[in-house]
């Protein structure tokens, strides 16, 4: 507390000192299982072993050891018969490819070992994604090895072969076509120009074919306001960013790309004459989104006011620019006028984005953007973004037609509208009326299981494909493994059904050579090598769409109300799980949501005052109903959410996705309403919440691993003060000694270490860390971090080596002790990545009785699993609580059914990292396997490693480059330069007062807020 004039807290239970919190605060790994045994929830554990069992085990163990000693099992080594020239066992190959999932896009590099993809990283050659990847893209490699995908084509629910399926399906299709029956191909956004050409070829053969695309979380309103296109957005040019409900850093359209642009404007330097200005970010929203958590100024509104907020913002801007205002009921939203003032002041470098899918709201926003000169700078209509092409009206129309029996045949091309469309239930009842139905979905999911045929598409890592994320920016997907199951990529299927050659690889190459590259084999090979081809670099258009704002305002006046008193539902997309397409991915299920820190569930999030009003508390199971649809959910109290609203995440409540997804949470898609012809994620009428009287724990990691009562954890300041003095808000701990007061870091019991070779270190910039947690998944993939499941997370035993601590701060004055106990309605938020700090005076090293954790000559705190006997003394003594204990054998036990208990799932394991067994401690190793590999490469080439050549998984995956890793002994390295500049500025160590001298430094957070009036 002494370091700051603020008080930080991670959860309301901490703030109010709830008994459960107080009991667990000193209990890092949760309760002994006996307590959970009573609930029947605990898994078997050592402490429950009885004496007889122990003797049995002992006897068996002795017998087993003596048997093992007699003869070692014969191990075989099986080489290739015909080794491909470019595959060398134990040496990784990297291939440039493209990740697409619906409209989500990233240009990627795929690391393969012995022919199997094991890790995905960003491709920095792409000027679109710039090497940024979302957690979902990182996790998609695990989805490749999902054993619950279809193993081959199916007809009428029975396995068939491709030849038969092709024959039967084309016969039926031809019959429909002969009658002139309507044929529909339903897909999510297709980024691939060549796939669209394939569909056109298919439509040429069956002329009644129409392609309908929709998106689970659509941006139809935005494209409707821009005459069918979405202009490309560039936050990096913005000085003022205003978001009306758009979670653009977390889940809106292309969050990773936007994050890297946003970070450019948020980076500051303590250097004399260094960059001391940053963009100002205003967020108006209903939920506490990750983007809102990163905003400088934030205010809330109810979903029923959303359109009017846009109108009010337009009017405020219009007033300042002298344009005519429009009619609209007044809504009171804090900071709105201030935002308008800043927008106008930074004209030409301002941007307003809105998350609403209502075309009328987007029209008003487009008009506001035109007023502040956004088009031509932050918005560019000359290069449209293709990420969301869904047409809500066409999709709704299709479902109505299907219900009326007007559709002859339908092909669901990797689309699951029965689950992820608000009218899914209607479609489910309509499907039997369609004569011929086929799905290319990878599994027999909610939609595919209702179709007559399933022709499973291959995973994107097994396929050829291309993408055009923005007009003129092309990207290629190449297979990095041959198909695991008897799947066939959908494009080949379409071509086969159209009576053409099913060789899509050749089709793709010829289309590229003739229409995209306009070059021969060399150009093709180059594009394939680079993964991207970007002939359209620089056209900018300042033209803004012409919209009838008065008509829009009139439509808004009808659909929205300034003074709604009832409860309202807002439906949102989570940063981790997204729309639920990868719901059967355990990495994503166990991904702690950046703001709520909850995993393995969705929940009804409400604000504290609303909870009090409804007499509900965290964990109460309630029935939420609206529009004749009812779900049962636990309550999660979310600081910062708008009063009178309930927020429910989509992506959950799958019923036919697989073991990890089925029955986890509830489906929130049916709550989505139709407003002005588009699917808008709100429900403002007739919402009721009733308590069931039961409770359900939410697996929430927010107050796990607290740093006890130590407070010098987060440091922050505001820009105005930082510009004057880089040390503003910094805290240098001092201690009193017999020789007077000294810096805490000047006193030490230890002699320290000398690093002659390398000194690895890391700097984490709290200013650019958005909390997106892509690093968490990247780390898990790189380091074989196991998934433990919902109950074990509740037992406080999650295994993530890297956690993103989210701190709320109270706005009450520090002296106001009473005020501090009340959770703030709209708290400020800080995200802090926390991992092993690799201390130079490491408290863990001194307490290990078997020297299993030691210090290296390169500054790493080493953890030796084969030496560890599991006393957990080190974890006890770790001030940062970053050590994790293997309570179970997570990789071979069927109790942990998260892909790692079968051979297929285990194919994702990184062979260079030991799979830890039960009973040992583990923690961040600073990707020592990558350090060793990088050093070896340098040694082989007889040189020193070059800065940037060795990258740890988290730093590599950070979309905003908030993490800088490198050799602090190398004066030319980025980290050395950064520390040199920030040493007398923003750099600090967490809990510096205990002087453990970490090798990880943090850079103080700077908010672009006005200085407090003294």
């Amino acid at each position, binding site marked *: 507390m002494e370091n700051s004039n603020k008080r930080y807290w991670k959860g309301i239970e901490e703030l109010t000192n709830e008994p459960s919190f107080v009991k667990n605060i000193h209990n890092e790994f949760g309760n002994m299982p006996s307590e959970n045994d009573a609930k029947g929830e605990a898994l078997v554990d050592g402490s429950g072993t009885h004496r007889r069992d122990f003797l049995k085990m002992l006897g068996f163990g002795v017998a087993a050891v003596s048997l093992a000693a007699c003869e070692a099992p014969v191990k075989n080594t*099986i*080489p290739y018969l015909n080794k491909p020239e470019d595959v060398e*066992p134990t040496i990784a190959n990297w291939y440039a490819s493209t990740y697409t999932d619906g409209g989500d896009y990233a240009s990627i590099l795929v690391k393969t070992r012995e022919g199997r993809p094991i890790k995905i990283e960003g491709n920095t050659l792409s000027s679109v994604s710039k090497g940024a990847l979302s957690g979902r893209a990182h996790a998609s490699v695990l989805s490749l090895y999902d054993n619950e995908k279809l193993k081959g084509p199916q007809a009428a629910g029975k396995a068939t072969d491709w030849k038969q399926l092709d024959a039967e399906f084309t016969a039926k299709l031809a019959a429909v076509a002969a009658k002139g029956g309507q044929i529909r191909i339903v897909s999510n956004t297709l980024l691939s120009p060549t796939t669209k050409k394939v569909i056109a070829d298919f439509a040429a053969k069956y002329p009644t074919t129409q392609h309908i695309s929709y998106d689970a979380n659509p941006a139809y309103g935005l494209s409707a306001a821009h005459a069918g296109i979405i202009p490309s957005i560039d936050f990096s040019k913005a000085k003022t960013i205003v978001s009306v409900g758009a979670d653009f850093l977390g889940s809106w359209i292309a969050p990773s790309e936007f994050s890297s642009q946003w970070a450019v404007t948020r980076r500051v330097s303590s250097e004399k004459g260094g960059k001391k200005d940053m963009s100002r970010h205003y967020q108006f929203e209903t939920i506490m989104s990750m983007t809102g958590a990163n905003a400088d100024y934030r205010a809330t509104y109810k979903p029923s006011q959303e359109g009017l907020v846009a109108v009010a913002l337009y009017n405020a801007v219009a007033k300042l620019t002298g344009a005519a205002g429009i009619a609209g009921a007044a809504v009171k939203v804090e900071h709105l006028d201030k935002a308008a003032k800043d927008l106008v002041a930074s004209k030409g470098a301002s941007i307003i984005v809105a998350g609403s899918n209502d075309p009328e709201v987007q029209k008003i926003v487009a008009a506001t953007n035109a007023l502040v000169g956004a088009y031509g700078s932050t918005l560019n209509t000359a290069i449209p973004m293709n990420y969301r092409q869904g047409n809500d009206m066409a999709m709704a129309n299709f479902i109505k037609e299907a219900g009326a029996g007007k559709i002859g045949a339908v092909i669901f091309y990797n689309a699951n509208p029965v689950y992820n469309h608000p009218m899914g239930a209607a479609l489910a009842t309509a499907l039997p009326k369609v004569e011929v139905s086929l799905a290319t979905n990878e599994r027999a999911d909610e939609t595919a299981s209702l179709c007559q045929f399933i022709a499973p598409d291959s995973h994107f890592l097994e396929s050829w494909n291309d993408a055009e994320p923005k007009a003129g920016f092309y990207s290629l997907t190449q297979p990095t493994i041959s198909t695991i199951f008897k799947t066939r990529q959908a494009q080949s299927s379409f071509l086969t059904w159209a009576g053409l050659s099913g060789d899509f690889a050749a089709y793709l190459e010829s289309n590229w050579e003739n229409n995209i590259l306009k070059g021969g084999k060399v150009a093709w090979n180059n594009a394939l090598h680079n993964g991207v081809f970007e002939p359209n670099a620089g056209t900018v258009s300042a033209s803004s769409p012409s919209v009838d704002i008065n008509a829009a305002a009139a439509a808004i006046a009808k659909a929205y109300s300034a003074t709604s008193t009832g409860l309202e539902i807002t439906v949102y997309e989570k940063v981790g799980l997204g729309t639920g397409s990868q719901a059967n991915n355990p990495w994503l299920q166990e991904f702690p949501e950046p703001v709520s820190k909850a995993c393995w569930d969705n929940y009804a999030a409400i604000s504290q005052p609303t909870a009090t009003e409804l007499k509900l508390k965290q964990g109460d199971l309630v029935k939420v109903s609206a529009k004749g649809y009812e779900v049962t959910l636990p309550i999660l109290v979310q600081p910062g959410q708008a009063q009178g609203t309930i927020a429910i995440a989509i992506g959950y409540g799958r019923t036919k996705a697989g073991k990890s997804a089925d029955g986890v949470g509830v489906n929130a898609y049916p709550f989505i309403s139709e407003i002005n012809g588009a699917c808008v994620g709100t429900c403002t009428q007739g919402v009721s919440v009733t308590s069931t009287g039961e409770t359900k724990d939410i697996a929430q990691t927010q107050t796990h691993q607290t740093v006890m009562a130590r407070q010098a954890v987060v440091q922050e300041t505001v820009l105005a003060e930082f510009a004057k003095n880089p040390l503003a808000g910094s805290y240098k701990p001092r201690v009193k000694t017999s020789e007077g007061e000294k810096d805490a870091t000047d006193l030490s019991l230890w002699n320290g270490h000398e690093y002659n070779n390398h000194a690895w270190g890391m700097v984490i910039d709290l200013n650019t860390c958005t909390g997106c947690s892509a690093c968490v998944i990247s780390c898990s993939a790189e380091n074989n971090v196991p998934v433990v499941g919902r109950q074990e997370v509740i037992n406080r035993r999650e295994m993530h080596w890297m956690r993103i601590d989210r701190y709320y701060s109270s706005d009450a004055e520090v002296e106001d002790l009473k005020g501090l106990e009340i959770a703030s309605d709209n708290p400020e938020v800080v995200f802090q990545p926390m991992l092993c700090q690799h201390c130079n005076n490491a408290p863990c090293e001194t307490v290990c009785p078997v020297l299993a954790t030691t210090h290296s000559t390169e500054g790493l705190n080493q953890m030796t*699993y084969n030496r560890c006997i599991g006393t957990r003394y080190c974890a006890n003594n770790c001030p940062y609580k970053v050590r994790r204990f293997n309570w179970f054998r997570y990789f071979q036990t069927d109790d942990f059914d998260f892909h790692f208990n079968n051979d297929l799932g285990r194919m994702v394991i990184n062979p260079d990292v030991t799979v830890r067994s039960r009973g040992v401690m583990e923690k961040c190793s600073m990707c020592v396997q990558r350090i060793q590999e990088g050093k*070896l490469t340098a040694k082989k080439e007889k040189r020193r490693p070059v800065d940037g050549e060795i990258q740890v998984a988290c730093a590599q995956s950070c979309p905003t480059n908030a993490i800088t890793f490198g050799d602090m002994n190398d004066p030319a390295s980025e980290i050395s330069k950064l520390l040199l500049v920030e040493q007398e500025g923003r750099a600090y160590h967490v809990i510096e007062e205990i002087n453990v001298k970490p090798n990880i430094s943090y850079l103080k957070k700077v908010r672009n807020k006005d200085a407090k009036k003294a």
Partner: protein
Amino acid sequence: MFCKKSTLVKSLLSFAILFASVSATFAQDAAEGETLFKNNCAACHNTSDEVLVGPGLKGVSERRPIEWIVKWVHNPQAVIASGDKYANDLYNKFNKAAMTPYPNFTEPQIKSIIAYIDAANVAPAAPAAGAAPAAGTAAPAAQSSGGMLEVLLVGLLIIMVIVLIALLSIVSTLSKITTAGEGSIEAPLLQRLAENAKALAANSAVKTGILVLALLLGGKATIDAAYGVGIHQGYAPEQPIKFSHKLHAGQYQINCNYCHTGVYAGKGANVPSANICMNCHNAIKRESPEIQKIYNAIENNEPIQWVRVHNLPDLAYFNHSQHTNVGGLECKNCHGEIEKMEVVEQRSSLTMGWCIDCHRETDVNSKGNAYYDKLVEVHNKDSKTPLKVQNIGGLECSKCHY
């Protein structure tokens, strides 16, 4: 893929052998030539006049002009097609089996191969042994420590026997004195011995002594056995195909890297794939039943299940290239004299103690490697001994365990 650095040690060795008879530049050529020859030509050609798959190459530089050889190596088919008489005769002589073209070889490279062939015929190929890098001492050291223990035990045994004899003689003298006092007749020797033995057996000190000794020996045997668990030194399993390293690596001197393609490049040395066998055996000894097994494997698309000889536990990370390529170690440092093994066996214990011993004693191969320059400089400031692996963190846990 082959790596020139990889054979640095070997090259230096041939350099030393050849230095006496030929000029330095010539030897360097021959050294390069040796690498090239062993990696590319040795599968089909001998340096002597012995026919392997193709003709023996002894005196080839005299038989044909260099221009012709270059043309031939770059594209034999073209030379044959050009109607060259010598080429066509050769082609027909070897049953119309054309040589693999090597269009990437430069003329100096081809010349260096010829230089090597000539040099090999001047000084008959000396066995590559004799290079005794510092690391070579590791294995003998381990063995000698075992030997010391045995010597110690035998010594102790001898001392104990002497003590026993001394004690017995004292006992007999004492009993002699006592019986002499009583004036009885001396009992026969056998009876006396039996009585002594009885007395000895009744003595509790002796009993305890024997018990303690038995316990100690038993304990040692148990500990030795326990230490032996998981150590498979001398393990030489029968392989599905009776491949002889003695023949391939010993007699024909095929470079290890020719088959074990990863040994200088990656973590694993790699057991060769069947297509590498086929590089030669599509022509050589096709009728052999053992080689037929390879054909069968390829025809039936069933990979050959070799038995793994060297098994490191998964918790230990070992990288071949670090040791061979960077460290400059010979394969035999750890694997023993593979070229003399009919069936490969595990020569070293592969225990952590064995690794550590070597890391303690081995000098870092830092010469000419800029990675180590600063480290050597810092080390030499306050030390006179050369930089050892242990001085740069070679004993740290996370060098092998992560």
